[in-house]
């Protein structure tokens, strides 16, 4: 076994870990469809899916079987290449972004020194999924959805990035592990970067197209918007892609503002993964709770909120943070 050098071993283990993380994220994303429905049912005075398996846990299997066996229909009037490309982007972009998340001291796919920037890049790419889907469907509802998505993403990505610059400025690094360690030594960023957290959270919901920023789908208005023409697995990829985006964004919130794998006050450092998972689940639940509780603002109100409220708030936050960092450096 002379070919099994320690370097190769490390490499194989790293690949194995990456594959495990990939599978866990995808399965978590798929399972979320069941969890969301159960939670909504719980909050809405009804049962939700509870027939298949214990507590309805195998509902996801039933759903997937249904989706796999559905006709993979492409409308004859659609632009076939782009029509097929769109769900792939939707599925892949936010999944790739998960690569930068440090799950525990030893687990994580990629330890990039430009970690956050990679997330911004992927978030920027994910809008193409909606844009392509809306355009190639050749459907007016889909087109309106795509237009809303582009406008919304352009507006919200401006301060999505700026909201995190406070964190970056304080840590002095884009690297995610550095950010986590900095929080363990100082304070979790939820306190010093509270406004950064608020605006990033809002922008993150907008990036995932979740309620109340689901303008591109807006069931009541656009009858599903950009993915109105999709069916079968292509639709399924949009669907799971959205849940993966929730997982990624929740994990990011935990990493950037809630100390990553660390417990509060340094409690129980032996179980980093549990802490990380618990906190991520909490944010996932908040996403679902938001969907259950509030109405959807009008599209122009969403834009006005972005430019007139969130962006100035972000800029002020960044200025104040910058001033404090400069002051403490001297």
């Amino acid at each position, binding site marked *: 076994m002379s070919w099994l050098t320690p370097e190769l071993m490390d490499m194989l283990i790293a690949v194995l870990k990456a594959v495990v993380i990939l599978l866990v994220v995808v399965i978590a994303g798929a399972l979320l469809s069941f969890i969301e429905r159960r939670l909504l049912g719980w909050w809405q005075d*009804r049962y939700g899916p509870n027939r298949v398996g214990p507590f309805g846990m195998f509902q996801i299997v039933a759903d997937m079987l249904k989706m796999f066996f559905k006709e993979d229909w492409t409308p004859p009037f659609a632009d076939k290449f782009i029509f097929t490309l769109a769900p792939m982007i939707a599925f892949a972009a936010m999944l790739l972004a998960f690569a930068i998340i440090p799950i525990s001291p030893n687990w994580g796919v990629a330890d990039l020194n430009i970690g956050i920037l990679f997330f911004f890049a992927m978030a920027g790419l994910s809008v193409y999924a909606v844009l392509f889907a809306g355009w190639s469907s050749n459907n*007016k509802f889909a087109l309106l959805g795509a237009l809303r998505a582009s406008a919304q993403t352009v507006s919200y990505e401006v301060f999505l990035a700026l909201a995190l610059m406070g964190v970056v400025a304080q840590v002095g690094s884009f690297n995610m592990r550095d950010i986590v360690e900095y929080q363990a030594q100082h304070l979790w960023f939820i306190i010093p970067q509270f406004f950064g957290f608020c605006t990033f959270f809002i922008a993150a919901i907008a990036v995932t197209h979740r*309620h109340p920023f689901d303008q591109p789908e807006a069931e009541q*208005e656009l*009858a599903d918007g950009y993915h109105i023409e999709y069916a079968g697995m292509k639709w399924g990829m949009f669907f799971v892609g959205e849940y993966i985006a929730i997982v990624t964004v929740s994990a990011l919130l935990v990493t950037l503002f809630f100390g990553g794998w660390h417990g509060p006050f340094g409690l129980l450092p032996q179980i980093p993964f549990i802490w990380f998972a618990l906190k991520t689940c909490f944010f996932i639940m908040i996403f679902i709770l938001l*969907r259950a509780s509030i*109405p959807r603002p009008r599209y122009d109100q969403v834009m006005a909120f972005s430019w007139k409220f969130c962006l100035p708030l972000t800029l002020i936050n960044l200025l104040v943070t910058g001033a404090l960092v400069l002051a403490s450096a001297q």
Partner: protein
Amino acid sequence: MTANSVLSIAPYTPDDHSVIGELSAKFGAEAFTVQTTRTGMPVLWVAREQLTNILTFLRNLPRPYVMLYDLHGVDERLRTQRRGLPDADFTVFYHLMSIERNNDVMIKVALSEGDLNLPSITSIWPNANWYEREVWDLYGIHFTGHPHLTRIMMPPTWEGHPLRKDYPARATEFDPFSLTLAKQQHEEEAARFRPEDWGMQRGGAHEDFMFLNLGPNHPSAHGAFRIILQLDGEEIVDCVPEIGYHHRGAEKMAERQSWHSFIPYTDRIDYLGGVMNNLPYVLSVEKLAGIKVPDRVDFIRVMMAEFFRITSHLLFLGTYIQDVGAMTPVFFTFTDRQRAYKVIEAITGFRLHPAWYRIGGVAHDLPRGWDKLVKEFVDWLPKRLDEYEKAALQNSILRGRTIGVAQYNTREALEWGVTGAGLRSTGLDFDLRKARPYSGYEHFDFEVPLANNGDAYDRCMVRVEEMRQSIRIIDQCLRNMPEGPYKADHPLTTPPPKERTLRDIETLITHFLQVSWGPVMPANESFQMIEATKGINSYYLTSDGGTMSYRTRIRTPSFAHLQQIPPVIRGSMVADLIAYLGSIDFVMADVDR
């Protein structure tokens, strides 16, 4: 009358004929033939040549007839008992309403079969538009000067005019239906929207408009309703509502059902209104028959009607909040409806469509223990309403979505025939239960909720408050339910009280005839309007002295409300339209009948 002014409404005096004096002074008494009816309003026949002048005069009188409440036709060719009336093959009637007089007048015009033409009155009341289209569609009467006289209920490819007496009422009288590919394509092509037909531009100076076909299958269209939007970006430049997908020909069916067996059909007119729909029909039939029902019947009817007002408003509330994007409240309001249906089911035996009122009474007496069930519901609902208000209706996003959206004032509401909460949210205190009490509403103590802005938010708040008032009325029924029979002691009560049929042969024969042929109503005309769940609903019945109605005209509020959409929504966004549609509270069955 200025916009938003709260008018004083005169006490209601049925059969107030003072307007005939005013008309005679202007046009001469010989210009009118007065018809004696049981409609509770003067019915005047006029010559076609004078129609426009007379209607314009009525519109511009001091204390004017501001609302064209109804407009429709009658095929008179088979009517046998029309002594003293001008000769006519077809009649078109104009039912006008004055808020300040709190009185109505009906103008009729006789037409002969060879010359079915009338001047259009869309320039006097804009809402004549759809009514005239419907008369053209169903009777083939042509209105000169109408901006767009096309079919409205039937598909554009339809042949014949279904409400004519020589048009068959049963499917078995036609050849079997078949759909070939060629026919399907022909129908689809006929449904294609051409902006030019509606005088719309396909583009402006610098942009092309998008024509978006919203419906007939759209989650927020609340039924089979199609509305074609002319969009500049997301702004609605203009729109064309298209109805008729839910048309079942209820008025035609009424002409071949006995007076009694038509009752279940009325349930399905406003399918959320349940027994509330029976009320104007049975009241109107009772006027024909001359039946005065016992107090207990009035109270039971009022109580059940208010129950259905609540279930209808609860459904409105849930779907309205859902239309602005909050998904949860609808599940809670449905749970509440469930509780109401528990009571309704215990009392009537059915849930959605009990068809429970009868000519001269109700189907059976209240069951034992009804008061306990009603009490439970009366105690339950107000707390829930407070919760909805706090959790959903005071939400700033919901307020931002609906305040100032789809706003209109009292004057606009009246000229489009808007009634119900849509009218009261503009500040006009006009609730038939107070203004023209029927079925014993004068005995109850309740308030008429009003609002001032006439926007989507106010329409909702008025309805929420109406539910509280309905609870008050139900509570009073609970406390003061009179003892007595649940059917009137009258030969035309249907089915007749059973007790005596087993003793006297005469009553046995009557009973047999009434449940087989149905009762024979004296030849006359009668009319009853009520404050239904969605606005004013009325039945205008014509009896030719038979076991079936000669003509049943069902005036529904939703029809008028949908017609008003384009002027209200022009210049707003697509999302506003959805909030507006939610706030109208219509069901398509109520529009198309």
